[in-house]
């Protein structure tokens, strides 16, 4: 059952009492909040997510009202992960950003049965493309564009890899665009559903892009990765895709993982397998149409 099939008041009741329990990829997350503004945003932005009633939830989060000692009359909120507050208070209008970051944290710090790469992942023709994060990559912007042009969203942030099968696991969620990317995507994808811009966060202005319905509906379909592409947005550049050595790719991929070290030998073996099974490239681009064309050709050529 999807969130959209709940009435608004039913949604609100769940969220403010026992919690809204939804599937986020392989995880079930239980969210509690009685903030009206956040409730409305979530009802809209999470509409395609599936409910996880009567299933075990691995992550329990809540967003509650709080009073900031130094500015007691400005509404603030606190994010809680299992009752503990890992962040300082947020102004209330940033509640959605706090929730999304907090859920990232909740998943990242307690998941070691999977390898967690810091990477965007999309799928086409049954194979996954990994876009590891590194400064200037613009991976979320690129990812938002790709998933509205024929690619299926696995994640803009977490490359989940099953060490046993080597498969990538989808975890389609809201994609947070930052600062100038917001306008870029608004212009490039005028029909994409996006949340309101949230200003003055730690990462600047943030706006969340909703994944296309089929990305969420097909979140249980895994895929092996076939390409590892290290993107870099460079203003005014034309598209350039260049192969890189396996060793460079390995180092960059492993050092861009949330839990590579914790997994020890398993981490090493899993990354090795990925590198061996994939073709590895660097990618320089500036224009979204051009880069999508180039990636389409790359994918078709296999």
């Amino acid at each position, binding site marked *: 059952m999807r969130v959209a099939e709940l009435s608004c008041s039913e949604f609100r009741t769940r969220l403010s009492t026992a919690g809204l329990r939804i599937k986020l990829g392989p995880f079930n997350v239980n969210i509690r909040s009685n903030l009206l503004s956040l409730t409305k945003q979530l009802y809209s932005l999470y509409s395609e997510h599936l409910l996880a009633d009567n299933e075990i*939830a*691995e992550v329990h989060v809540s967003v509650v009202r709080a009073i900031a000692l130094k500015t007691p009359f400005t509404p603030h909120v606190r994010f809680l992960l*299992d009752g503990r507050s890992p962040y300082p208070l947020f102004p209330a209008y940033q509640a959605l950003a706090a929730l999304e970051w907090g859920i990232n944290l909740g998943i990242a710090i*307690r998941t070691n049965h999977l390898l967690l790469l810091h990477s965007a992942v999309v799928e086409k023709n049954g194979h996954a493309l990994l876009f590891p994060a590194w400064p200037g990559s613009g991976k979320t912007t690129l990812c938002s564009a790709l998933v509205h042009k024929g690619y299926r969203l696995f994640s803009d942030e977490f490359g989940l890899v099953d060490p046993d099968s080597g498969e990538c696991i989808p975890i389609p969620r809201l994609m947070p665009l930052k600062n100038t990317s917001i306008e870029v995507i608004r212009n490039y994808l005028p029909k994409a559903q996006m949340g309101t811009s949230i200003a003055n966060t730690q990462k600047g202005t943030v706006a969340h892009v909703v994944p296309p319905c089929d990305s969420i509906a097909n979140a249980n379909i895994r895929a092996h990765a076939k390409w590892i592409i290290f993107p870099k947005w460079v203003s005014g550049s034309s598209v350039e895709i260049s192969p890189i050595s396996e060793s460079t790719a390995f180092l960059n991929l492993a050092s861009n993982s949330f839990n590579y070290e914790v997994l020890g030998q*398993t981490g090493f073996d899993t990354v090795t397998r990925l590198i061996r099974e994939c073709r590895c490239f660097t990618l320089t681009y500036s224009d979204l149409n051009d880069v999508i064309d180039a990636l389409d050709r790359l994918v078709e050529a296999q």
Partner: protein
Amino acid sequence: MSLNQQQCIELVTRAITHSGELHKLPPSDWELLIRLSRKLKLLGRIAWIVDNSDQRSEIPSRAMNQLDSGLIQARKLQQATSWELDRVCWALQDTNITLVALKGVAYPLAGLPASGARAYIDLDVMVSEDELPVVESELLAQGWQHNQVSSYDEKYYRDWMHEIPALIHQERETEVDIHHAIVPKTSRLKCNSKLLLDESVPTSKRGLRVLNPVDMLIHCAVNLFNNNELADDLRDLLDIHDLVIHFSSKDTAFYSKLIARAKLLGTGRPLYYALHFSQKLFNTPIVDSVLQSVPNQPSGMTLKLMAFLVPRTLYPLHPDHPSRISILCRFLLYLRSHWLKMHMRELIPHLLYKSYLALGGGNTDG
């Protein structure tokens, strides 16, 4: 007791005492057990129990993934800590100093069965007080450094406590706590820690020793019931349970040695609590006559009070419905732990200063 708190206590206790029945737990119980175990740092332990009792295929996969994740993390932390111990030994190899490994890192060295699944983060070692300056300067010279602590905290450690401020190597993240005693200097419990060093036992590694079995148990008891605040510290009581079972099975004279040693060291009270609560909560097979022989037992009233406060504090609060009474119990035992560690003339100013800091005083970055 509130129903929610009761449920938490029963769920965790049964996972230990009736571990063969874990596969019978409904999914809702698993969800709560995972959350509580995470708080208690017992995910790895329960994963170990599941595998040891061959129940893996019957546990819901979402729960098993969380248990596995906890065990993987515990193993990683152990690797980091034993490597740190190795490096500390290496750094001190040219001195004649004997290091005694304490707590978590010592349990595998003593052969404790469940120790491989235990999550611990810091490295605790003990040296004699007169060797402490050499140890500290040697480690500082070879790449370790102190955490940035305020001058207040510096004084707190050196003048009052039984350890120096923590050391961390520049290239690694494991904290090294070097103790010279098992109780703070200001503690109301006076214990001659030199006796513990003198009767420590060697390990296969030169220069590295561990406490003898009786002292290891006594140290665990003193740490839990005198030094710690007890909140969510159930794992330390489980250590007591493990130590008692392991060592009593290897030495028929273990209990009589334990009682005699507690008399000598003056640690009867914390030992009594450790054995009493381990027996009550985990059904540790300690015969009543042993308990009755422990010196310096608490009065009936005191024991009743502790029996009320301790379980509500050792076990976690229900994550969604925390019991207010349990919160009060934790606060009282927090005060108790400070009262035991320091005298009033030190305690009151200390608590006032800590409260001032907690409210944001002296804090430049808000």
